[in-house]
């Protein structure tokens, strides 16, 4: 049996965090933790070394692109899936150029939320979300 996947979800909006946590927890075999402040999230990624980070794009203080570039500049290889309310092409390009492993637009139905979480965890388990 594969090891428990630990996922850290970073989003400044408590409601988004609730949906994400619900969706990932529903997968089973996943240890979900969440963080609202991007600066604290950076520290936690460094210390807790999660298997997967799901990162909101628009956040106060430091946005998702900032978190991602700090991680990559430190040489941190953790797979990061960016998650945003609006998938503008510019943002998507910027995220992939910055070294993200995937970019998704936040779903609008619970079913899609579950499917999204299932897909991400599935990809990770099959090794399709390689470390950077």
């Amino acid at each position, binding site marked *: 049996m594969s090891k428990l996947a630990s996922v850290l979800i970073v989003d400044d909006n408590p*409601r988004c965090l609730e949906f994400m946590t619900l969706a990932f927890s529903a997968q089973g075999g996943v240890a979900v933790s969440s963080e609202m402040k991007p600066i604290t999230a950076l520290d936690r990624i460094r210390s807790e070394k999660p298997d997967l980070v799901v990162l909101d794009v628009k956040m*106060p203080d430091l946005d998702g692109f900032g978190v991602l570039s700090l991680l990559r500049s430190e040489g941190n290889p953790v797979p990061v899936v960016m998650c945003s309310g609006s998938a503008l092409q510019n943002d998507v390009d910027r995220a992939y150029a910055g070294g993200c492993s995937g970019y998704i637009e936040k779903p609008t139905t619970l079913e899609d939320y579950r499917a999204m979480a299932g897909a991400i965890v599935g990809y990770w388990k099959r090794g399709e979300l390689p470390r950077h």
Partner: protein
Amino acid sequence: MSQTMLDTYLRLPRRRYFSALEWHAVAIGSIAAAVLIIGYGFGFEPLQMIIPGFPTMKARTAAALMALSVSFLMSLRGSNRSRWGSAAVAAVLAVLLAHMWATRSLSTGADAWSIIPSDATIFCLLIGAVTLVVINLRPGWSLAAGVLALVAATPALFRIFGLFLFQGAPDANSPLNTMALHTATLIAWFMLVCVMLHPRLGFGRVVLQASLRGRLLRRALPVVVVLPVVAAAISLALSMTHNWASEALFAVNAAISVTLAALLIWWLSSLVEGWQAEANEQASRLSRANEALEQYASSAAHDLKAPARHVLLYGELLEEALAKDDLATARRHARSIRDSAREMPNIIDGMLDYSRSAFTRITLSENSLSELVQAAARQNAGDLESTGAQITVLHEVRMRCDSTLMTTVFHNLITNAIKNRRRDRPLAVRIDGVRDETGVRISIEDNGVGFDPDFAVVAFNPLARGVHTAGEGTGIGLATCRTIIQSHGGQIRIDPNWRNGARVEFTLPDKRPA
């Protein structure tokens, strides 16, 4: 040209424009009537005997002028009937004047009504009548009507200036010399003011419209009219006091006209320069507004989608909970739906306030710090009372600013202080003002939880939001403050070294940068 267009372009309301024209026409008609009555007494003993030296006008001239003003008044009415009526009056007058012209050498009568007006007068009145016929029957021929009106006014103007400049005799044999000054004045007045500014000709629209061209014309035209009169008055004074020859007077006149015209051009160019500076400022205001709009669009997309998405998702969760008869969870989800929906109007209002602050035109006035703070506190009165907060103004200063916008700044800053107050002690807000040679420096400090140092850096970005205030307000208040202070030429910042709560400082220069 439709008359509704006038409303769009004119600086004056249409009604005022029309009534001004009506008053001019009535005045001209009335003066002609008065001269007729006083000069000829309608067959009674001429009143001129009673008022010696009162100017007379030939009875036919006065009657023709009255007919012209009646025709003009009718042409101002919108209906077709009055238009045809006006044209008919003018046409009959034109035929009578033409007949008078043709038979003028045959007239032998000696009573007032038999005296034929001078050739120049008949010519002016005839062309004036034809102009009114054209205006009424051929609305498209505005240029032709304008030229006709000028042709009718020109002999009268020559006569007026001739009388002014040469005391009536540049050429003693000219037919113009037979036209009396008051007749010439009434004809020139009627043609230039009433007919030339007739709404159907469109010249009035150009002069009175709120465009740059209209503004220049309104300033230049009166000067152009007054200019030769001033030159003439000066020459006249010289000819009377120094008995100068007409050649010398002509030279003086020309010199004065050229000097005054040069001054006029100089004045107009400085006016245009001022307007250009105004336009530049508007352009920079527009570019600020565009920047604000760009930020608005991207943050609106993000911020508005979030609560809408949440309402949908909690709705689904609510259905699932109800399907399982889990009422406690269902209640929690229903509350979340309400909370999410409640965020939307706040976000929209905040965004609109923000973008509006970038568009608003600034009206500067002298204001005292305490008055502005009081006005802002009145807007926050409910919250201030319920939290037992105290606001103190430490030093009074006077500042030049837009009072409405500056009240918004204080309102937003006080709102922030209330939101970020500490629950263990009553909120105290201290506002201070210091004046130096360049302007004033205002500080607002409170004893609340203060700004997160990380947040302080980005606090004025409309997308930024203090973490501890998440869910409360839209976080756009500080961005609005910055837009307002910047449009006053000042700067705003959060004091990063202030540890005992929050401290915001801003400057307001006395002179706004160009």
